[in-house]
């Protein structure tokens, strides 16, 4: 078994990052360089942010000049079908469309994702401090995937046999960027249940971004993830269905969508980082049930509950489904009242996937 990629090495934590960041910003060159070198061993969003804030000549006004709130900073790169990251910049913020479909879809998708988090939750980019958004398209040769490498989004062209280009689906772009948000807020370890929650967060907000662009209420949304991604000839409609996990594809070559939608069907496996893309069907379904029961635009209330839960300090990096469920229920109670229809809808959502939030609260001695 491999070590969890999400594990926080204690070595990196000896000097708190905020101390390094302050040193880096202090303007004393030797100290700043030393702090940046230390941060360089920590290749996370946190380090990127500190590095940017300490850039020469803008030390004192870095926040104001570089990252005015609500202002996007997108850069789209092309890997020119190699695997070199980030590759060659081809479209910067404010540049006109290039005519390269993947470049322009990535640019627009990043924009929609940024706007979603800013306008719905007043979140200023991945780190809520205006982190520039970078994406690389045309990664690899016939590359059948999109991923978040810890710092940026990466999109393949697909092989045309199984997959189309990965920028085709806005929710996939939102999914990748949300991995950055989740890492910044909660660092949910990418393994087993915490990893499946990490995945579910990306599906939830990926789907909400698409719904908001389409101006769809919960009852009109398709709740599919990656519609349009499967190439012609593949038997399926998308990568996943939040509404009906396990039904997105059933193809002789791809196999059958392995997602469960209930705890009784939970899949114990070492594949896929312990089933992170498999068991995410369970919290996905809970969100879908809560959102359709609450009604209206799903990002307004249900999305807000999930977003505030993601920001909750009690959401530990190894949180499992049950603890997460309880936190969403408590958040719904805090935002809308413990006896509100919203709190009840969240409880019902979890009940429908086999997680009894009320009983969990009793166990914890908190009725």
């Amino acid at each position, binding site marked *: 078994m491999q070590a969890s990629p999400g594990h926080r090495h204690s070595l990196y934590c000896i000097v708190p990052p905020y101390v390094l960041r302050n040193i880096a910003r202090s303007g004393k060159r030797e100290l700043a360089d030393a702090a940046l070198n230390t941060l360089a061993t920590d290749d996370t969003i946190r380090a990127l942010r500190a590095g940017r804030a300490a850039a020469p000549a803008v030390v004192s006004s870095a926040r104001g000049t570089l990252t005015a709130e609500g202002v996007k900073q997108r850069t789209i790169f092309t890997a020119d079908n190699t695997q070199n990251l980030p590759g060659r910049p081809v479209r910067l913020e404010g540049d006109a469309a290039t005519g390269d479909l993947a470049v322009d879809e990535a640019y627009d998708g990043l924009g929609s994702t940024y706007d979603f988090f800013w306008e719905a939750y007043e979140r200023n980019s991945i780190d809520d401090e205006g982190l520039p958004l970078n994406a690389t398209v045309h990664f690899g040769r016939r590359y059948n995937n999109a991923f978040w490498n810890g710092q940026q989004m990466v999109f393949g062209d697909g092989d045309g046999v199984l997959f189309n280009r990965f920028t085709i689906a806005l929710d996939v772009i939102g*999914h990748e960027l949300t991995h950055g948000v989740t890492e910044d807020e909660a660092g949910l370890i990418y393994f087993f249940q915490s990893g499946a929650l990490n995945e579910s967060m990306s599906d939830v907000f990926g789907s909400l971004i698409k719904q908001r662009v389409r101006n769809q209420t919960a009852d009109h949304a398709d709740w599919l993830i990656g519609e349009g991604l499967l190439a012609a000839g593949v038997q399926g409609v998308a990568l996943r269905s939040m509404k009906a996990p396990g039904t997105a594809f059933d193809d002789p070559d791809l196999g059958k969508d392995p997602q469960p939608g209930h705890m009784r069907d939970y899949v114990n496996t070492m594949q896929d980082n312990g089933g992170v893309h498999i068991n995410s069907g369970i919290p996905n379904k809970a969100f879908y049930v809560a959102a359709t029961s609450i009604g209206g635009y799903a990002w307004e209330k249900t999305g807000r509950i999930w977003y505030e839960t993601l920001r909750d300090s009690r959401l530990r990096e190894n949180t499992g489904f049950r603890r997460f469920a309880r936190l969403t229920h408590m958040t719904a109670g805090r935002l809308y009242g413990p006896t509100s229809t919203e709190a009840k809808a969240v409880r019902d959502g979890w009940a429908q996937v086999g997680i009894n939030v009320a009983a969990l609260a009793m166990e914890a001695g908190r009725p």
Partner: protein
Amino acid sequence: MRIEYRKEGGIAHLPGLAKPLTIDTAELTPEQAAELERLVEQSAFFSLPATVGRLKRGAADYQEYHIQVTEGDRSHAVQVVDPAGAEAVAALIDFLDDRQREAIIKSRAARQRGEP
């Protein structure tokens, strides 16, 4: 030369693509066999460390590639994560993916002809 190849991870778990693929150069066309031997040689496969590529913290949806090459009495297994980085390793993975794709196109065509 015999290669066992298995891919997992990525943005979705696709059970059909996670199945292991075994390639024996004896079953390839002479051109493909020569190409594969060249790619193994070029990537210095038998000298590669057990893991190639390094995950950054917070990374998600990356693919992992498990490659085992057996030639005569030597055998070596390597696990690669996205991005493979080294071009020669990426080229070897591309070759293996091409064989997987060929098999899929072939079986799809057979189904369209009504064969089992």
